[in-house]
């Protein structure tokens, strides 16, 4: 009989080995799944993990990895700060939407004025939109002790309704013949967020993601707030004795993660997506939760995890088109990654022992 025994301290080895083992297990069992479906598993794994980086069309797909990874990293880093302190913002998807709407609204309000200040102003508005949306669960928690998980999650659906209203109503393109969707920012240079180097896939969102990753690393390892965040997560009582104000920390972590999600939304709507539309959000806010954990809530880890997750999307699409795999098989594959990650993660805090005598 196998038995789980709690470790006195989390294992450092398993902390870092978990993502690697999870990826390997996903490849193995995913490959098994593909083989059962009658596709060559090695071809699928190669198409997903190798081709986007080094294959025939890598020159295009590498850039697309950045396009996909940028918002994931930006959002996941914000979330990881809260997660470390035991503050669970699950509603990044809603904050992402609200950031995009607020930022886009500022740009569309002054259309077609050309001014250098417009884009920076939109960035501020985007961050504000996400921040304000995250403040709702934050303040409800600190004032009335509501559960931030539920409130932030519910607000995603509210945000989606506002998004639908925006695209069919107040942000609708007046020249769109009645069809839903805002003007396309690609036709409005002052408010657009194009690729910084043609073909690279890198836009301001990617730059922001890298800057934020470094800033978060510095914050966590060198700044007193980073210390407070870590302490609150590991030992809430000790944190209180150290003078950490829990309410202040909730407002700070929720606000930061909301603002970053809002930024991601703004960069997306002005860049790759191009316009506010009913289907603007494609789940970055939820996927970022996986990315945050896959990256061990560590800024550098999150950057790597974001790229890995982007790889499963871009490569998964390739596998689906070229090898005729159903889209659902790719989604199962992505789901496996989280499943194995959480499964293997048990080993960080527990060890497996053989129980004596059965």
């Amino acid at each position: 009989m196998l038995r789980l025994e709690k470790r006195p301290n989390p294992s450092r080895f398993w902390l870092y080995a978990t993502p690697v083992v999870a990826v390997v297990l996903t490849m193995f069992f995913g490959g098994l799944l593909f083989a059962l479906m009658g596709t060559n598993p090695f071809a699928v794994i190669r198409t997903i993990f190798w081709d986007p980086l080094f294959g025939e069309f890598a020159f295009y797909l590498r850039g697309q990895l950045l396009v996909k990874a940028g918002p994931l990293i930006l959002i996941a880093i914000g979330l990881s700060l809260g997660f470390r302190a035991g503050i669970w913002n699950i509603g990044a998807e809603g904050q992402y939407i609200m950031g995009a709407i607020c930022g886009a609204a500022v740009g569309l309000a002054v259309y077609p004025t050309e001014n250098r200040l417009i884009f920076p102003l939109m960035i501020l508005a985007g961050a504000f939109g996400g921040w304000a949306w995250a403040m709702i669960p934050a303040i409800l928690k600190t004032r009335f002790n509501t559960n931030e998980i539920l409130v932030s999650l519910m607000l995603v659906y509210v945000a989606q309704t506002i998004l639908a209203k925006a695209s069919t109503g107040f942000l609708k393109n007046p020249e769109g013949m009645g069809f839903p969707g805002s003007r396309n920012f690609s036709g409005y240079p002052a408010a657009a967020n194009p690729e910084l180097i043609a073909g690279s896939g890198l836009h301001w969102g990617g730059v922001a993601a890298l800057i934020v990753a470094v800033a978060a690393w510095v914050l966590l390892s060198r700044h007193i707030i980073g210390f407070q965040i870590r302490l609150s997560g590991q030992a809430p009582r000790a944190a209180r004795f150290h003078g950490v104000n829990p309410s202040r920390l909730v407002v700070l972590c929720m606000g930061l993660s909301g603002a970053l999600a809002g930024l991601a939304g703004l960069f997306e709507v002005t860049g790759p997506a191009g316009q506010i539309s009913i289907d603007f959000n494609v789940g970055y806010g939820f996927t970022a939760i996986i990315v945050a954990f896959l990256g061990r809530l560590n800024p550098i880890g999150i950057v790597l995890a974001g790229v890995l997750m982007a790889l499963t999307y871009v490569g998964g699409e390739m596998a689906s088109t070229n090898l005729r795999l159903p889209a659902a098989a790719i989604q199962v594959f992505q789901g496996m990654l989280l499943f194995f990650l959480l499964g293997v993660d048990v080993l960080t805090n527990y060890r497996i022992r053989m129980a004596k005598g059965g």
Partner: protein
Amino acid sequence: MLRRTLLATAAAGLGLMTAGGAMAAGMDKVKACFVYVGPIGDGGWTYQHHQGALAVQEAYGDKVEIQYQESVPEGADAERVLTQMALGGCNIIFTTSFGYMDPTNAVAAKFPDVKFEHATGFKREHPNVSTYNARFYEGRAVQGTIAGMMTKSNKIGYIGSFPIPEVMNGINAYYLAAKKVNPNVELSVVWAFTWFDPAKEADSAKALIDQGVDVIAAHTDSTAPLAEAAKAGGAVIGFGQASDMEAYKPSPRVSSIIDNWAPYYVERVGALLDGTYEQSDVWAGIAGGEVLIGDITDAVPAEVKAAAEKVRDDIAAGTLHPFTGPIKKQDGSDWLAEGATAPDGDLLGMNFYVEGITGDIPK
């Protein structure tokens, strides 16, 4: 290497207009690619497009290669999928949902040698972009006739996806036809804000049934509304949407609108093969065979069936237009004068309910 240069140049903003007439010579082999918004097993919209794709394969055999991608989100992801397809050697790409409009045009600018065909949209910003659509509202007039005659509660329902003109056409045509045969009929519209989400669609159907609605038409892609109607044990009927949905025959599915894309797809790929391909904007209906009315089952009385078939045949013959005046808008203002029929421009931009429908269009 050539493709790479091409992409980089186009991305730098230099238009490449060298392809004009390059296809005139015809082609030996065509790679035809399809982008789907849902899974091919949705039993509705995407399923029918995929049937069209299979028909192309059937028609030309070795001369075509079919490639497709399911469940592509509308937006930035679509642009990547389209680019990958174009890079991968697709000669013609069919983008089969409204939300692919801007991505289709954006990618078309970068690949002037590839033909793009966008379903249900209106933007043709480049010479290699064509659009196509079907007059689904003609089928709605047939369904409305059945609904008006069959309802016992005088309450009929419609599950709307998004308030875009195509859906508004359908709602108004359905209501007008029902009203014509049953002046007491009332229409409830529920907005699902999705094309494919069986759970949401089922909830919408349930909400309608709870209001006393006994005939449901859906403008979403799955069979969930029919499954929900089936639970009412014969008291509620509905229609197959986009696909025949014959599994729910003879009731609750009493008829259906079948999107028949096969003739169009076969024609367009054929034109590419023989060199006669030209940019176009096609909007055919029952007469053109793009909109088929699925078998009307014995669950409806013979006179209802006859009335519905007459509407179908009159539309096909061109003697009946589902939007024939006098028709007023919901706010009471005039739309069509006595005997006038709706111009296509009005239909393509329709953003209002006709008089008699209650409720607001989501803004």
